[in-house]
């Protein structure tokens, strides 16, 4: 029986799968349907080659060697900072700190900024749909400083309830830390408005600080930290087509200048004596030890790739697929989408009646479909929706409609198997 109501496949905005070696290799005669970009993105060949070439042809340390290899590596290493600053429209590359990832970026702020400025009774506002990386560091520092954590609730679609947020803001609010896009639901939070309101609260109404966890936004939409008026913006290289082991913390320079070092060691000092050590200015103050040099270079290439591919195009491509994926999944018997906020990002979290998400994950793998199953490091989000876990398909610019067709077909098969 021909189904005339079947959703029509969108015309792809981008056609870039061939640039990603893993996505085009043969898995025993089976194609890989990679739908786990929210966990980590695949790497374009340019990034892989650049890192490989660096190790083979021009590897040397940075900011120490006086030989040419090191000087060249240092120049490339510092150039990535400029590229990242350009990507997010930071005022200066001195506002770009290299970290190991979003997790370390947030910990840096919690320990360094929080450890200096938080006092007993101060309040930290988080949302109900944060990743554990934007919850646990705050719990640790709150406990140490006697600060209190307040939580912005979400409605049944996974949208932050802004009226509740407004009620939480007060003279006691010192920092508001929220994600730009939720990894578990895909909700895009109104971070510009969140920052505007936070900046009117705080002690004496002089403004609370705002940290935005951009792990899920940076590779999927254009981000302008000055337009958002973010005080901190954190993200990971491996979720933006770059390597693992490298991440970024953006911070407004005057705030960074007011903060003590996060870790001590080489490269972050001006002068060390046993009597007294003076520290470098930002960003180097926060970068102790030999950094992941190849990863920084790889990140620079990834940023370049992102800008050339075009974040607007990536966003349009993913949104068309999100719409298509939503339609085909809604036709699967017993499937329930979790997270239906208007304007959400390209993440499809769902449950299937009678089937645990882990079983879905294992069984889809049989069809070459890679999705995430579990609590997505967001257990409070799962609690809010009364589920222990969900299955999650997340879309990247290299996906196409066949990936979502395969997903829907696999889910039907699994549903029948468990019936």
């Amino acid at each position, binding site marked *: 029986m021909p189904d005339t109501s079947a959703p029509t496949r969108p015309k792809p905005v981008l056609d870039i799968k061939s640039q990603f070696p893993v996505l085009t290799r043969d898995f025993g005669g089976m194609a890989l349907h990679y739908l786990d970009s929210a966990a980590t993105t695949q790497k374009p060949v340019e990034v892989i080659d650049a890192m490989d070439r660096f190790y083979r042809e021009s590897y040397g340390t940075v900011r120490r060697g006086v030989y040419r290899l090191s000087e060249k590596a240092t120049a490339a290493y510092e150039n990535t900072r400029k590229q990242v600053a350009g990507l997010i429209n930071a005022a200066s590359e001195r506002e770009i700190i290299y970290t190991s990832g979003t997790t370390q970026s947030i910990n840096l702020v919690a320990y360094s900024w929080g450890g200096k400025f938080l006092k007993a009774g101060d309040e930290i506002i988080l949302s109900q749909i944060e990743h554990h990386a934007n919850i646990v560091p705050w719990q640790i520092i709150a406990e140490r400083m006697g600060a209190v954590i307040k939580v912005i609730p979400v409605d049944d679609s996974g949208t932050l309830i802004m009226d509740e947020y407004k009620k939480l803001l007060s003279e006691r609010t010192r920092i508001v830390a929220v994600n730009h896009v939720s990894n578990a639901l895909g909700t895009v939070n109104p971070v510009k408005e969140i920052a505007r309101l936070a900046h009117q609260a705080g002690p004496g109404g002089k403004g609370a600080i705002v940290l935005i966890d951009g792990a899920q936004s940076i590779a999927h939409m254009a981000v302008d930290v000055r337009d958002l008026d973010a005080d901190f913006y954190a993200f990971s290289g491996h979720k933006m087509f770059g390597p693992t082991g490298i991440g970024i913390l953006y911070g407004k320079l005057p705030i960074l200048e007011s903060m003590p070092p996060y870790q001590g060691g080489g490269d972050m000092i001006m002068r060390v004596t046993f009597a007294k050590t003076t520290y470098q200015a930002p960003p180097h103050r926060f970068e102790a030890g030999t950094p992941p040099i190849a990863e920084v270079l790889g990140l620079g290439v990834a940023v370049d790739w992102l800008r050339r591919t075009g974040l607007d195009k990536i966003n349009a491509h993913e949104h068309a697929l999100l719409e298509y994926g939503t339609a085909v999944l809604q036709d699967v018997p017993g499937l329930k989408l979790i997270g239906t906020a208007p304007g959400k990002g390209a993440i499809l979290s769902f449950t299937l009646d*009678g*089937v*645990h*998400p*882990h*079983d879905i994950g*294992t*069984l889809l*793998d*049989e069809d070459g479909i890679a999705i995430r*199953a*579990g*609590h997505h490091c967001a*257990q409070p989000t*799962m609690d809010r929706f009364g589920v*222990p*876990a969900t299955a999650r398909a997340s879309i990247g610019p290299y996906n196409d409609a066949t990936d979502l067709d395969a997903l829907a077909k696999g889910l039907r098969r699994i549903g029948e*198997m*468990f019936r």
Partner: protein
Amino acid sequence: MSRSNELYQQVILDHNKNPRNYRALEGSDVLVCEGHNPLCGDHITVYLDLDANGTVNDLGFQGNGCAISKASASMMTAYLKGKSLAEVKTIFSEFHDMVRGEFDPASRENHLGKLTLFQGVKEYSSRIKCASLAWHALMGALDKQQSATTEE
């Protein structure tokens, strides 16, 4: 047979859908332990009633988990009724080694019986803990612990 057909056999699907002994046991002597798998957040509580000689009088379980962990709990509770404490410990250790791929039940005589159905789990490193969750809770109950985890 594909990898997952070997894992998701009809018996396992059936125990998932109609779990045996899915109930709490009452009584002041009943040993209770909640097993957690921190990797996925799943938890299964095992209720154990031993008689004076240390023989398993009754077993029950409740909780939330995937088909593998639920079927494993269901089959475990059915299989161990009437077994002695020493037998339970032997079966646990054989089962544990089997799902980790360290013991092939075909290689020597053993006490696993129908539980060898879970052999396929060894191919799925991320699912081994699902199969052993209820067993860890059972061992925790024997040790008079209130909770146990799959992380050793």
